[in-house]
């Protein structure tokens, strides 16, 4: 460890990291465009200039991302000369920038805006015509490039080279005619393209599914955990006006996903924006299902289940640890084995994050005493039973295509099931609408928070399950 002084504070810092990282650890914000803690520093944008004095020599303005810390170094990030240097730099960066913030998806979370405000660099002196470049370069399924907004920080180029190890982007052209492009104009490939929009500090790389969908200041952001595989990346779930989830982005988690996430997880949000979702209860009525209150559906389910001798219970791999505890109580009261449906590994597994196992809480369920079973085996079991309870998000999808015979079904899911034996369907919240815990493949805890309230008629699963347990006890006791 090396002792340095930053803004009058004495710090002990890791000498293997650049000065800007030392400032980060101490919570001292230094502006940056080309520097990203997950990428090799190149020192090209020059916005991170701070005043540095080494070995008693007179202070100099230096780029913090390429400055190695040394014992006794004295740093002032707020020196007038440092502010001047950063203002100069901003004026240059904005010289050819189109300033189309009103139609830019990045506006509101753009560091060109933030640092201009912070450094009070309100107006540039250039009256020269601004460069006109391509504003809509389609880089494949995920990313749209606006070359005019680009400040050539090359974070995207380095992300491809260093993180995905698939160098697909480059800067071409010379000087002020430089631009970012893919090799031979080919579309980007791979499952990590969305991160390019995250690393882009300006509005040059935007996500096609998010373009013109929302102003970012209208998004309510909650930290949560990704549901798409057993990695359980830390994410920010971003909801527009208590309605649809508009965007999912990774949140830095050094133990799990660093700064990144895969596109499978990032673009999974339409699954929780289902307009056709179940918002109450359904019970069998003749050949059809009839809408009822959740309470009525639970009472009906209790009657059905207490009236059968052979019944079982199947949990979804999306259950939280807390929900699993409640399912266990119900299972014990039914005398059923604790089983959860384990879908087969998919081919999305890679070397970076995706585990290929689509069960976000496999470890949590196993630790709670649940045993994995394939949907096919479960379906075979169900055909030999009188009744079965299917509990948890996406459980009906997991049984899609399997013949469940004629046994009576009680389902707890976000949607309903029209299979012949369905007796009662009870609505549950999506994972973005509940608090809870998942345990990932490495045993790290992933927390879910309520990013959006569930509809008033949709109660938490713990509560509906509890009510069913109670109702069954009453029914069985003939109350």
């Amino acid at each position: 460890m090396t002792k340095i002084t930053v803004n009058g504070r004495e710090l002990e810092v890791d000498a293997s990291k650049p000065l800007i990282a030392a400032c980060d650890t101490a919570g001292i914000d230094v502006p940056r465009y080309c520097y990203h803690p997950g990428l090799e520093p190149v020192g090209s944008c020059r916005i991170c200039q701070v005043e540095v004095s080494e070995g008693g020599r007179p202070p100099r303005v230096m780029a913090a991302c390429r400055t190695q810390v040394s014992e006794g170094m004295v740093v002032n990030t707020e020196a007038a000369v440092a502010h001047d240097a950063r203002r100069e730099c901003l004026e240059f960066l904005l010289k050819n920038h189109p300033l189309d913030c009103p139609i830019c998806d990045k506006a509101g979370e753009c560091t060109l805006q933030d640092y201009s405000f912070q450094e009070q660099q309100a107006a540039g002196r250039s009256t020269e015509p601004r460069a006109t470049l391509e504003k809509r370069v389609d880089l494949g399924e995920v990313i749209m490039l606006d070359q005019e907004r680009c400040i050539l920080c090359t974070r995207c180029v380095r992300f491809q080279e260093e993180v995905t190890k698939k160098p697909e982007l480059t800067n071409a052209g010379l000087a002020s005619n430089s631009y970012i492009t893919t090799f031979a104009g080919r579309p980007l490939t791979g499952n990590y393209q969305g991160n390019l929009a995250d690393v882009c500090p300006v509005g040059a790389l935007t996500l096609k599914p998010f373009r013109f969908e929302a102003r970012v200041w209208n998004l309510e952001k909650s930290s949560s955990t990704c549901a798409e595989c057993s990695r359980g990346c830390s994410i920010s779930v971003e909801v527009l006006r208590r309605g649809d989830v508009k965007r999912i982005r990774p949140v830095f988690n050094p133990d799990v996903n660093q700064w990144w996430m895969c596109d499978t997880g990032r673009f999974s949000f339409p699954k929780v924006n289902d307009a056709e979702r179940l918002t109450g209860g359904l019970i069998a009525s003749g050949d059809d299902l009839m809408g009822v209150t959740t309470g009525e559906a639970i009472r009906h389910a209790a009657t059905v289940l207490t009236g059968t001798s052979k019944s079982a219970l199947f949990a979804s791999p999306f259950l939280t640890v807390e929900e699993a505890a409640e399912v266990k109580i119900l299972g014990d009261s039914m005398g059923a084995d604790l089983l959860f449906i384990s879908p087969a590994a998919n081919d999305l597994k890679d070397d970076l994050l995706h585990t290929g196992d689509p069960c976000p809480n496999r470890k949590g369920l196993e630790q709670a005493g649940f045993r994995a079973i394939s949907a096919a085996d479960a379906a075979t079991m169900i055909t030999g039973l009188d009744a079965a309870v299917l509990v948890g998000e996406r459980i009906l999808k997991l049984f899609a295509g399997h013949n469940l015979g004629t046994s009576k079904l009680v389902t707890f899911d976000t949607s309903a099931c029209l299979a012949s034996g369905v007796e009662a369907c009870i609505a549950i919240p999506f994972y973005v609408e509940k608090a809870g815990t998942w345990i990932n493949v490495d045993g790290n805890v992933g927390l879910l928070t309520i990013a959006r309230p569930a509809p008033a008629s949709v109660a938490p699963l713990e509560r509906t399950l509890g009510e069913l347990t109670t109702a069954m006890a009453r029914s069985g006791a003939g109350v």
Partner: protein
Amino acid sequence: MSGFETYLTSRMTGPDSHTLASYKKHGGYVALERALKEMQPAEVTESVKASGLRGRGGAGFPTGLKWTFMPDPAKDPRSRYLAINADESEPGTCKDRVIMDEDPHGLLEGILLACYAMKCEASYIYVRGEYRHQYDRTVAALEEARAAGLVGKNILGSGFDCEIYMHKGAGAYICGEETGMMESLEGKRGHPRPKPPFPAGFGLWGQPTTVNNVETIFNVPFIVDKGPEWYRSMGVESSPGNFLVGISGNVNKPGVYEAPLGTNAKVLLEADHFAGGMTEGRKLKAWFTGGSSTGMMPGETVDVGMDHDSVKAAGTMLGTAAMIMLDDTQCVVRAMQIIARFYDHETCGQCSQCREGCQWLHQIFKRIEEGQGRDGDIDLLTSIGNGMAPGKTICALADAAAIPAHLMVKHFRADLEEHIRDGGCKINKTGKCAAGHSHKAPATEKAEAQA
């Protein structure tokens, strides 16, 4: 004829001066043979250090000292390289071209001596893309030398191995910056690397590397052959030896001349054995001391010794000693605009200030030249220059672009003000310069042609 000893051009005597036979006739490869047989590598370095040889690529860094920055091979077993910067692209500069054309074996011998001194296993010569003839000459010399056992394994039976590779650039000025050149040699875009780490620790392919200019290395065999004392007898105390000075512009005899460092620029301009005076005896309006990056100085300042420290004291740099002389029929604003256009075209575009600043400077000079200058433009030029340099970017290209702009404002403010006030250039308005060349702005010329 000239009253001083010449050595750099001493072998450039006839049409076959580039051949091994001619080179050997003039005592070529004797220094190499003696060094391999009689000298330890450290002695060669010491000799170069004692000679006081300073780099001829522009910065004037002491060559021997640079060589000592290479890590000790006993402690650092990595491969070691010497890279030769033959990407001579500084506007006005054409001295390395003469060496590769006329005396490529001198360069090769210098390389072998330097590699022996620094224990480098290989050397790479990065030749400017446009230098096709010079490239071919050097390749031919290399083949001759290889056939004669002077390059490759066990050179002259001494057990010393050294390979030399040639590489052609693709015409980018920035690849003349040493780290940009190394990136280019590695097959990447020629974007200069941030320093530290310096090439001696992390150079080509991450190995210890020294980068030297062609003319610098060309001096080495002479130093090894005749000794540092002899070398120090020429030039001035702080900059010993002779140098190749390229004189161009409105002079009677433009060309590359050998002169001792410290020779007065006025002598170089006026003496008959040098440039022979200004064309038609006209007045020197402005001059570049050593390539475009050193900026324009007023004609009155030409009475200065051409060595690193004297030119620095006069307010600019010796650079590559490429003097460009402009007479009073030339428009300095137009000349500046051309220089600014060059940097706008050639900045690599990595650093924000340089990429945008070079373009901005060019745009403003162009406007002023075309009669669209505004009050405040001159102060803005200074302010932009201050935003770009010194030392605010990864490499010195931003400095190279800012210095000419600063000197322009400092020395030729009146010309800029006149252009802004009169809505353009007087010389342009009369249409032609004394030489009969059109000095109209290209846009005006194009518009007139269309009309």
